[in-house]
């Protein structure tokens, strides 16, 4: 690991676009149904190097990989012009399977291991990329040598592995084809820091063994650390490129992608006129809450109080039980022991619709919106609980129903304005960037006029700039509507400027509760976040357990 800087310094002597590129992308234009996603992108991957592709969500990183792997058509995209060549051979009109057999193999985002197949069968599937070449046994040996963990788990189903192990399996599956160029799409996504560290070491080993690598990453710090050169994409174009060392030093990259020198700055919140009737927030109290799924204890004896009109953050590593907590509040999961009360109502005894009627509304970690409907339609759906017009009066468009519809639209417009979505209302959701979609998700929850808003990882998958924008939005919402907010987050830095109080969960236990700056200094919290490798491996395992439950 320590030699990366030396390598990258040497590479500064290389010309900007090396002539000896193994994989050569020239002036690539890609669109989805007429909407342009890549506009004249060029990228050269020299033999034996790691090239990082950075950029915020929607910049075109995944589209680039789809164009390289030939899977664009599966997503409704087309290459309009430009070329992709692997040592002079054009890949642009090849089927994905043929491209893999030619030697360009992708590890897709989100790992995508075959869940019902065993580890060994997953690797056998990867061996199809070898085509007629022999040496499958050697490929198995090499993968098992790189990932001894996979050998131990050969007979286990892919879906039962932890997140880190699945990432290893996805990489191992790609290596079975002995690729000349390995394309990695966000290999660090959703993994604990220690696992990310391990994966990036392995990427370097693979590279040293002679495979060129294209590394698409949201986590720019890691990508720049291991890559020889890097390319920054913005709205489908290359805006910066150079050796990693140069880019790490560049102020622009430091600010935008590494998020250095800036914590979440919320700034002044301008006063906003409330658009919805204010509902009085009530205290949310949780007493000795325990949730078990079979043998797995997701939450154990958790107690906390969310004061009315406050922002309360619940943080913790992956698999700490954060989402489980929200699911208990909304009635999706039953408590094994203990209870949660909102004012006088006992949430743990109520069914989801009754809880929603109390004014408890939530957002989802993974977006739960209709992609083909417009933003306005999605938001109106969020007002369903509050519409009184029945099937008949709405169907006949009676005056009362029409008045109500107009009122609903006014409220939706107000909420959209509050979240800076006014100009997006008429657009179909799928045309929006990821950050905007997350804000629509927040707006949808607000449309139910909640007095208690539960936010599940509102900045998951966002880059530094987008998450700052989200932080400002959340602060505005609280200021304007005066509601309680429970904010579940993975990212400790994000909540610090935002929360009035912070509860830290680890392995389902509450390990700290207090003011943000107290919690930040708590040794047990530091241990949980920065902890030992062993600890983080367990976290990943538990995350999978939670997902399965």
């Amino acid at each position, binding site marked *: 690991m320590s030699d990366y800087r030396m390598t990258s310094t040497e590479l500064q002597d290389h010309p900007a676009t090396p002539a000896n590129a193994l994989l050569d992308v020239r002036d690539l234009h890609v669109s989805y149904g007429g909407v342009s996603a890549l506009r004249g992108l060029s990228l050269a991957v020299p033999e034996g190097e790691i090239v990082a592709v950075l950029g915020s969500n929607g910049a075109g990183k995944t589209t680039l990989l789809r164009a390289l792997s030939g899977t664009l058509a599966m997503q409704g995209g087309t290459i309009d012009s430009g070329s992709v060549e692997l040592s002079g051979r054009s890949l642009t009109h090849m089927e994905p399977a043929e491209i893999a057999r030619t030697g360009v*193999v992708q590890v897709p985002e989100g790992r*995508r291991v*075959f869940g019902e*197949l065993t580890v060994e*069968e997953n690797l056998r599937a990867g061996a199809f990329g070898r085509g007629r070449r022999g040496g499958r046994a050697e490929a198995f040996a090499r993968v098992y040598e790189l990932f001894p963990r996979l050998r131990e788990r050969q007979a286990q189903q892919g879906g039962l592995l932890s997140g880190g192990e699945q990432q290893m399996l996805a990489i191992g599956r790609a290596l079975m084809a002995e690729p000349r160029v390995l394309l990695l799409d966000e290999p660090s996504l959703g993994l604990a820091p220690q696992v990310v560290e391990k994966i990036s070491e392995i990427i370097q080993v693979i590279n040293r063994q002679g495979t060129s690598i294209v590394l698409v990453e949201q986590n720019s710090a890691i990508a720049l650390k291991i890559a020889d050169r890097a390319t920054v994409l913005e709205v489908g174009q290359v805006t910066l490129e150079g050796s990693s060392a140069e880019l790490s030093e560049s102020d622009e990259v430091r600010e935008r992608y590494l998020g250095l020198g800036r914590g979440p700055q919320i700034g002044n919140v301008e006063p906003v006129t409330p658009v919805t009737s204010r509902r009085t927030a009530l205290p949310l109290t949780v007493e000795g809450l325990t949730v078990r799924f079979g043998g797995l204890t997701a939450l154990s004896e958790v107690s906390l109080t969310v004061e009315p009109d406050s922002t309360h953050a619940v943080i913790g590593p992956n698999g700490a039980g954060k989402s489980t907590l929200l699911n208990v509040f909304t009635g999706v999961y039953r408590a094994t022991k203990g209870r949660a009360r909102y004012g006088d109502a006992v949430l743990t005894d109520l069914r989801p619709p009754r809880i929603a009627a109390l004014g408890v509304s939530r957002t989802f970690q*993974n977006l739960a919106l209709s992609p083909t409907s417009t933003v306005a339609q999605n938001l109106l759906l969020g007002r369903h609980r509050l519409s009184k017009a029945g099937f008949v009066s709405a169907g006949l468009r009676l005056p009362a129903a029409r008045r109500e519809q107009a009122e609903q639209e006014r409220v939706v417009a107000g909420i959209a304005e509050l979240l800076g979505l006014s100009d997006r209302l008429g657009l179909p959701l799928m045309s929006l960037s990821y950050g905007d979609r997350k804000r629509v998700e927040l707006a949808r929850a607000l449309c139910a006029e909640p007095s208690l808003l539960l936010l599940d990882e509102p900045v998951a998958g966002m880059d530094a700039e987008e998450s700052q924008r989200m932080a400002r939005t959340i602060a505005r919402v609280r200021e304007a509507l005066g509601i309680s907010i429970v904010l579940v987050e993975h990212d400790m830095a994000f909540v610090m400027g935002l929360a009035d109080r912070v509860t830290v969960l680890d392995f389902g236990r509450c390990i700290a509760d207090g003011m943000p700056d107290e919690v930040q200094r708590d040794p047990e919290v530091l241990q949980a976040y920065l902890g030992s490798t062993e600890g983080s491996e367990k976290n990943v395992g538990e995350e999978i357990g939670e997902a399965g439950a």
Partner: protein
Amino acid sequence: MNQFIELLISGLSLGCIYALIAMGFVVVFKATNVVNFAHASVLMLGAYLVARWHGSLGFFGAVAAAAACCAVVAALCDIVLVRALRRRRGTQEVLAILTIGINIVLGTELAREVGTDLLPSGAPWGSDVTHLLGVTVPQTRIAAAVVALVLMGLFWVAFTRSDWGVAMRSAASDPEAAALSGIRLGRVAAGAWALAGALAAIGGAFFTSFPAAGVNNSTGLLALTAIPAAVLGGLDSTAGAVVGGLTIGVATTLAAGYQDQIAFLGRGLSEVVPYIALLLVLLWRPSGVFGTREVTRV
């Protein structure tokens, strides 16, 4: 009691044939996500070819030739029609409707060919019966059960052990990731359709043998009852196809055997029993007995 056991055994052997047919249906659904209604007319084609050819090729030769023919026809359906539509991003529903179209065209043409004839399948066992532990079982049904069990066993081994099985299951689990691994989805799909076609032909040959009289112009309609068998077990589960097939086989045989006792429900109840069983099971488990329930994490 004796009658019940007789009917049960007869039902189970019929169920084996249903299971074989349903398995093809499930394989196509798993590999290509298409609900293949054309399966019924391919089955009729297989039965028709066996009936036409057994005179010159012998029953077994005719079954083998018909299986090969149906495999080619089914694979062509996939390559020529389904694939073209999928290229243009035809959805699962559109593809299902396409297969209904294929079923009508092929089924109508076969019915026209058969006309008013009743073509016997020419199975060598004829109407011979064997007395087994005091109950009477037609020999064709024993042969059908044995053939079905052997084929299902072979299929199971290939599906779980061979590279072909790995490719099939990977493509079913995540087509995009499978393609990225170098698995040729087009070949996997065509292979699945071909296999389904061959299974349908073999199933069809036994389906129209004793105690059934032979192929007539409504065989295609009767073959449609294999679809409830697949849906009932769970469209994406091969084990489900076996259970669903056995259930439908037993249910129809019992309904036919006891039709005098249940005459108050109307004549010919056995023909609608598959659909009644399907309805009841789906009310209880909407994805079938072994089908994967859509699980979404919130």
